[in-house]
Each structure stands twice: as C-alpha cells, then as structure tokens.
C-alpha cells in the first residue's frame, strides 16, 4: 500500500531525473516570494517606527523593493523551466504507455479486462489529465510545507526580538494558544471531510439518477430525429415540458446540497482561519497599545499567523486530493506494470520444417481448451488449407502457429529444434498473416507496405505491378505517399474494404 503512494514520484524520476528537483526549487522560491510580500510592509513600517535617518530609510526601502523584484524575476524564470520539465514528463509518460501496449504479451490484449483497463486509462487518466494534475498537487504540497517552515523561522526571529523586549512569556502563550487553535481547525476540517464523504455519495446518486432520466428522455424523444411525427400528433412536447418542470423542482435542492457539501470543508477552513487571524490581531493590538512592541513586528507576526493557518489548512486538503488523483492513475499503472515480450531479431533463413507437437491451448479468460492435442508438420513449399466449422479452432490454431499465443502444453519445433530458447519476434518474423480483422495503419501507403518510415520505392513498385495494383496507385496525386483514412492526417483518402485488403496482401507478400 505504501508503495502506491510514491509510485508517481518514482515514475516521474524515471522519466526525467531532474524534474522533481526543479519542482522543489520552484516551491522554495514561490513560498519565499509570498512571504516577502507579507513581510515587506512590516519591514518598512518597522523602519519608519525606528525613525532612522532619511538616507538609510531610502536605501533600505530601495533594497527591500529590489529584493522583491529579484525574487519575482527568479520565480518567473523557475516557472518556465519547471513548466518545460512538466511538459516533457507528461508527454513522455504518454509515450511510455503507448509503447507498453505495443510490447506486452499478446495474450492479454484480447481479454475484456484489458479493454476495461484501456477505457479506464482513457476516461480517468487522459480525460482529466491526472498525471499533470498530480504533479500540480505535489507542487502545492511542497510549497505549503516550505511555507510552514518559513513561518516557523519567522516565528523564531520574532521570538528573539520579543525576548529582547522581555515579553517572551506573553508571546509564547499567544503562540501556543494559536497553535492549538490551528490544530483544532485541522481536526475540525478532517471531521467535516469525513461527514461529507458519507453524505455526498447519496446526493450524487440522486443527481446521477435525475441526470440519467433527463438524458434518456431527451435522447429518446428530442434527439431521435425520426420521431418528430409522433411527438406532434400526440402532443408529447407537453408531456416532456411537464416532466422537465418536475425534474427542475426535484433537482434544485439536491444541486444546492451538492455544492454545499463539496465546498463545506473549504469554507470551514476559510472561516476558521479568519477567526484565528482576528484573535491574533486583537492580542497584537493590545501588545502594541501597551507600547511594548515595534508595530512592524506586530504586523509581521499577524501576517505570519495568517500565512501559517492558510498553509496548514491547504495541507489538510492536499493529501486527500493527491489520493484522488493517484486513484485515477490505477489503470495506467496496471498497464505499465505488465510484462513485456522478449524482443529479438528476425530469423535470417526460412525454415525447412515447422512441427507442432501435441499442442493444448486455452484462452486466458476461459476455462476449457480450444486446441486439444494438435500435432502437425509443415514442410517448406507446402500449400495447406485449414478448414473446419465455426468455433472449431481454426483461428486459434493459426494464432498459436504464428506465435501470437503460446500453448499451455506441447512443443513447437523449427527444423527439429524447440523454439523455447528463441525470441518471439524471431519466430513471428517467418510468418506473414492476413487475418479477417486486419488493420490498415492510417499512415501512407508506402509505409504501410514496407512497415518502415523509409522504403525502397522501386522494390514496392515492382511488387505492386506483379499484383496488378500499381495502376490505381499511380493515378493518385501523391502515389505511395497518399495517407489512408483521415484519423491521423486530414488529407487521407477513404479506402474501401476491398482496397485495403489488397494493400494488406501486398504487405503479406513482402
């Protein structure tokens, strides 16, 4: 379980070694900037209070403003570097997932579980940008932790100042009271979050129910363009209108509840911070009126308290948000953790003989064997027809023969040698199979046939001429560079099933 919490950070470091470090650096500077903004007026007021000479005042003010400007500049620069690194990490993460899908063991691809995983990746991860958002929340986490650290440093500094003015006791008691209040605030927020998470699902369910009815109503009646006749003759629009009104009255209180519940914890945090801040101000005002302290120091303390409370309240939310984003990445990590097939080079020579000996095979999600003790020897030059009824196992046989699936029992021998030690790629490279549900990749025709970005145009032309297909391609304006379909490049052409199968057959020949 613990492993899960850090998996995103580990993955991010794997992709980009420096990524996390830049995030931390940015957070350090950002927190500093935010605190400097709080401290600036306090410093200046304290300088004015001390009534130093004019020149020193101007120089100090200039210095303070100068530091502010420099810090801002650095923070903007760091943001740019950080964003570039984040972009890199997010896109490389995408690439990693896609490459994984190319490399995993084929037997998982056709399972319904994998289909669910893919859908989960698309909906939960990609749709919401979960990875990027997780990194964003991580930034918030680091920033707030650093802010708390700065707040404690400033408290210490103020404490020293107060020690010199002999009111350490009052200062400490105030600080302790405030810390207790902050602690209670955090507890209160946590309790509230628990309450919300119990009540919210019911409200959400009701809303989803109402939404579903509305969606179905409108899908079936309004957007069903064939049914306009019935709608008008039977005055169904009146029915729809009445139901719509009814829906609105039922929806209204639930919608309000939903907004209230989702924002409850945040609102509580905000109100409690203000209360704590107000208490701090009053006590500081008393200290100030009693002439004890430099008002600049008072302000710094007040600002610090408010900053501290804000950071702590933020932190109490960040952990649950991080958990949520992490949850959305579940399916993606399932994919990333799947085993890959071994690579390997293509075979250099065509084999003389392939033998399947006593093959037993069943699909991962089923319980009964599809192939039961199949044995066959294929010699070089043989032309074999595989026939059988539907469901007799023809496609399965081919899939096992071509190395898509590995049999549970039995052996496959090439030229008398068991293929166990050989690479899967190598074994597969001997076969060119055209399945019923083949795919044409939406790249250009030349690449589709050559299975490579660069290809020998003449060689392909020769083969296409042999198959009587060159004329059609020659008539196209871009010839071999014509893209197929339009889901990759807008300038693709539409191609019929027959046309595409011809191209696939070329691939097979090559």
């Amino acid at each position, binding site marked *: 379980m613990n492993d899960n919490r850090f998996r995103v950070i580990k993955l991010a470091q794997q992709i980009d070694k420096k990524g996390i470090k830049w995030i931390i650096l940015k957070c350090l500077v950002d927190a500093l900037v935010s605190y400097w903004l709080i401290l600036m007026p306090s410093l200046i007021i304290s300088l004015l209070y001390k009534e130093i000479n004019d020149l020193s005042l101007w120089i100090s003010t200039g210095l303070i403003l100068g530091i502010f*400007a420099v810090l801002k500049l650095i923070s903007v620069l760091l943001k740019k570097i950080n964003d570039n690194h984040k972009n890199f990490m997010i896109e490389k993460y995408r690439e990693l997932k896609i490459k994984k899908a190319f490399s995993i063991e084929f037997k998982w691809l056709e399972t319904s579980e994998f289909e669910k995983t893919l859908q989960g990746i698309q909906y939960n991860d990609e749709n919401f940008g979960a990875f990027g958002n997780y990194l964003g929340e991580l930034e918030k986490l680091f920033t707030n932790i650093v802010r708390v650290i700065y707040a404690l440093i400033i408290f210490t500094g103020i404490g020293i100042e107060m020690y010199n003015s002999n009111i350490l006791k009052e200062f400490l008691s105030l600080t302790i009271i405030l810390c207790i209040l902050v602690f209670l605030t955090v507890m209160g927020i946590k309790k509230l979050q628990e309450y919300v998470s119990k009540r919210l699902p019911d409200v959400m369910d009701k809303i989803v129910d109402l939404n579903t009815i509305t969606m179905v109503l409108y899908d079936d009646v*309004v957007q069903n363009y064939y*049914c306009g006749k*019935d709608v*008008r003759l039977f005055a169904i629009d009146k029915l729809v209108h009445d139901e719509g009104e009814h829906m609105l009255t039922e929806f209204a209180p639930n919608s309000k509840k939903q907004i209230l519940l989702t924002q409850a914890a945040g609102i509580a945090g905000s109100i409690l911070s203000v209360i704590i801040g*107000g208490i701090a101000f009053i006590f500081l005002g008393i200290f*100030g009126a009693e002439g004890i302290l430099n008002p600049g120091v008072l302000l710094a303390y007040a600002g610090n308290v408010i900053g501290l409370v804000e950071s702590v309240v933020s932190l109490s939310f960040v952990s649950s948000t991080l958990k949520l984003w992490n949850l959305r990445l579940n399916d993606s990590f399932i994919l990333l953790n799947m085993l890959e097939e071994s690579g390997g080079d293509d075979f250099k020579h065509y084999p003389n003989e392939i033998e399947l000996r006593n093959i037993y095979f069943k699909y991962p999600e089923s319980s009964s064997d599809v192939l039961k003790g199949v044995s066959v020897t294929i010699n070089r030059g043989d032309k074999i027809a595989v026939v059988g009824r539907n469901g007799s196992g023809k496609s399965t046989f081919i899939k096992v023969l071509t190395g898509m699936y590995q049999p549970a029992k039995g052996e496959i021998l090439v030229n008398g040698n068991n293929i166990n030690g050989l690479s899967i790629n190598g074994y597969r490279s001997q076969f060119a199979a055209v399945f019923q*549900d083949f795919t044409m990749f939406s790249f250009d025709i030349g690449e589709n046939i050559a299975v490579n970005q660069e290809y020998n145009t003449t060689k392909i032309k020769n083969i296409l001429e042999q198959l009587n297909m060159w004329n059609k391609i020659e008539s196209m304006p871009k010839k071999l560079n014509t893209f197929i379909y339009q889901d990759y490049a807008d300038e693709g052409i539409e191609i019929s099933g027959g046309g595409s199968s011809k191209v696939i057959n070329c691939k097979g020949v090559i």
Partner: protein
Amino acid sequence: MSNNKNKYSFFTNIEYVLKNLWEYNKGYYSWGILSVLAFVGIPICSMMLQKYVVQGAIEHWEVIKIIQILSFFMIVWITMVILKHVSEIGFLHHQEMNRIRQLFAAEEVFLRCSYDKAEDSKNQIELEKVTDLLGTSNPRIEVNAMYNGIYEVAASVVGLIFFGIILGELNYLLVIIVAVSACIGGKIEQWALNKEFSIRMDAAGIDKKLGYFQRKLMRSSAGKDIRTYGCKRWLEMKLASVIQQKINSDNEKTKTNFLRDMGVSGIEVCQNAVVILWIVAGCISGSIQTADLLVYLIATMQLSDCVGKLIRSINQLQYADKDITEIRKFMDIREEETDCDEVFDAPVKIEFRHVCFQYPGSSKEILSDVNFTIKSGENIAIVGRNGAGKTTLIKLLCGFYPVTKGKILLDDQDIMEMKKGEIYRRISAIFQDLVFVPYSVRKNVIAGDKDNNSQRIKECLEKAQILDKFPDLDVFIDKRVHKGGIELSGGEKQKLAFARALYKRAGILILDEPTAALDPIAESGLYKNYNEVSKDKTTLFISHRLASTSFCDRILLLDKGRIAEEGTHDELLKKMGFILKCI
C-alpha cells in the same frame, strides 16, 4: 441584414441573459449583490485591522479602545467571509438552475417547431450545438462565462470605485498610474490568451495524431498486426516524432506564458514600488501617517486587480457573445400553434386535389397530381413500392409539409387555413419509428392528452392485445432509468403504440406498416381487431403487402408519385400482372 445585427447585438444578448435570470432565478441578483459586498468588504476589513494595530501602537491608545475597534472589525470581517461563501453558493446554484432551465427550453423548442424545420439537418446540427453549449457546467464553456462575466464586471466596477476613492485620498495621480499600468497588464494577458489559442489551433493536427495512437493503436485489433509484421520499431519511431512535436508545441505555450508573466510581474513590482516610495516620502515629510501605509498598499493591489478583472471579464463576455447569439437564434425558431381543446372524434372526410410535392430545395417530384377522395368512415389501404411516395403522402396529410401545388381538404376545409393544432387533433397514427417516454405505461398511452381515464386505458391496451403485460398501469416501461422497469420487445412496442393511437379520440387513424415487427399470429390477431377498431374512424393502412389489405374497403396503388390504380381487393387482383410489377 442590419436588422439581424441589431437583434442579436452584444447588448441585446446581455439584456436577454439578464431578463432570463430576473424572470426565473432572482436569487442570482440577491446573492450576487451580497457577493459583491463581501468582495469589497473583505479587503477593507483586512486593511482596517492592520491599520489600527499599527496606529494603536504608534499613538499608544488605551487598551479598551483598541479592543473595541479591533473586535468590531474582526466581527465584520468574519461576517463578510461567511457572507462571501454563502452568497457564492447561492449564486452558483441559481446560475446552474438557469442554465439547466435554458437547456430544457432549447430542447422543447425543437419539439414545438414545425415538422419540416425539425427534419432539416441544419436545425438538427444547431440543436446539437446549442445543447452542447448549455449542457455542461464546465466553467470554461462560454455560456457559463456569460454568467460569470456579468458578475465580474459588476464586482470589478464597484471595487474600482471604492478602492479608487481610497487610493485617491493619497493622490489621484496614483490612481491613474495604477489604473493605466493595470490596463497594460490586461492587454498583455489578452495577447497571451490569443497566442495560446492560435498555438492550440496549430496543435490540433498533432493532437489528432496522438489521439490516433492512443485510441486505435493500443487496441488488440492493431496489436495483432503489429506483432505479425514486426511493426513495433517503425511505430515507435513515428510515435517518438509525434511526441516531440507535442512537447515543442507545449513549450511554445510555456514561452508565451513566460513573457506574459514577466510583463505582468514587472507591472506589479513597479506599482508596489511607486506607491511605497510615495508613501515613504509622505511619511518622512509627515503628511501621511505610517499606519496608512497598509491601507494604501492594499488599495493599490485591489485596484490593480479590479482593473485586470474588468478587462478580462469584458473579453469573456465578448467570447460568450457569439454563443449567446447562437442560442437565441435557435430559441427564436417559431413554435407551431398546437393548442386546441376541441375533440374531433367523428370520422373525417379526406380529399386530395391535384396535389404535387417536392421537398424544399430538391427538384425531384415525389408526388405528381395526386387526386383522391376518402369518404368519412372508409377504410383505405395505400400500397406501393418503397419510394413510391406513401410516407410522403401521409406527411402531407398531417400537415407536416406544405404542398407544392394543389390542396388537401379535411371535412372540406383546406388544411392550409387550419391551425396546426386543429389538424393534429384529427389524426392518430402509428408510424414505423416509435417513440416512447421513459415513464409509466399510463403516461405513454395518454401522452399529451388531457383526459386521464384508467378504464379507457385498459380498454385500449386490451384492444391492442397487450393488457396482460401491464397489470399495473403505473409501472415504468424503461429499465435503463428505473430499476423495476419492464423491457419491451419490438412487437410489444408496436402494440403499445397501437394502444396509444386508440386512446386518442381522433377521426383519422393512420397505420404505417403496422405489422412489420409482429409475428404472423399477432399479425392475424391485429387484422381481426382491425375491423372493430376502424369502425367509427376513417382509417388509412399503409403497406407494401397487397395480401394484408383484404379487409379494407378500397385500395389505392401509388406508383412513381401517382395513383396508378384504385379499387377493391378483388378488383385489383384481377389486374394481377400489373400489380405484381408494382409491389
């Protein structure tokens, strides 16, 4: 054209949204005002608290006085924060309810307009666009930007006035400097937004390619071919180059944001510097109290924020403007007058006189010179091949399209001179595409009728041979949304539609291929009932099976848009040869 411009101008659009909110969701205004109050009040409380802490320290006030003043402001501050959150919730709630109400209204427009408009694919596309716009509460979608934009404009104008006055106490020159520099900041942000938009447009092609990899190539169908042909290396190379393009495009955006941030931060630093230096000079010369430093500093930041907000929200409104125009144009599609309280259950006489028809925008004549009269109470069958014009004839009869030439008369009245409601009230029909609502059987049988008579519903269900399926009239007929609901088969759906058609007391009953989904037993059951149900109505039975029309009084054979033959079943059988060619 200029009429159009004035009708849907920017200001009329805003007026439209405001009026709509006022009519249905007044809460938007009341919560909105409170929200603006809190928006201005919170920084003011914050600045007062800080000011008095400092002032109390410098001027050595009495403890009682300090406690009183600070407590006062603290209570106001806490009240304001509570007010802010409460009003935000109320505000969001009303915004959301208004949006949903508009969504429903848009969908109903489509149900109430004339049929020819509903069949027009242009309007269908518009419907989808409008429901897309109104259908989501995503705040980046422009319609919500309109609601937000109006509020933000109001809030920023009020803030401008308040904080402008506060800062103006120092010097109005400062106000101008801050305001102008904030405008420049706003322009920089606008530039960055536009640049980002154009980068996104350019990147659309890359996103499409990436989407292709993610959606198609990760699946098992591609996986087979990838492994068979060893495509992995090739595809990985292609993928790498697409990913690199995406990273480059993302980095372009980062660069734009960097330049924007530099500009905006620079302005912020300068604003703060100017105000602080001014105040320090003032403090040195004694004309300004030290305690007021914070007041002016906060006022500066708020003023600058408000100017920026104002610019942003006006831009937001301008983006939303064209979407609101689209919505309004759609809502302005005229309703038909379908209200009609009269009941026309006496059988109707139908006459077609030299009727010709072409669909709008097409030159092909679907019906040419169609002439026939159906006496009241007659049972007529209309037969013909697919595409002969049967369904079109029915559409014209119902008044769904206006005839191109000729007249259609119901009870000797031209339907062009009748209100649509009066035509619809006379006709009850079962078409091939059935529509049901996801509610109870009762609601589906009654539909829009005002009369809710359980006994009559049961009679109609019985005549339709489906009473046994529904012992409880209030059971839901849709399992998708109601867990205890019933699933209906194709045949059962047709029977339910038949019950609905019977329930409506109309003088004309039209059955368009009513037995298509029924099995032979149910079909013959229907024919047995047919005589009975068609007793006191004029019925039209459309079919392409001559055999199924033997119980009709007369048969009209429609071929190539004309009445080719007319006669009883037996008369037509004698002309078998010709008929067989036509069916």
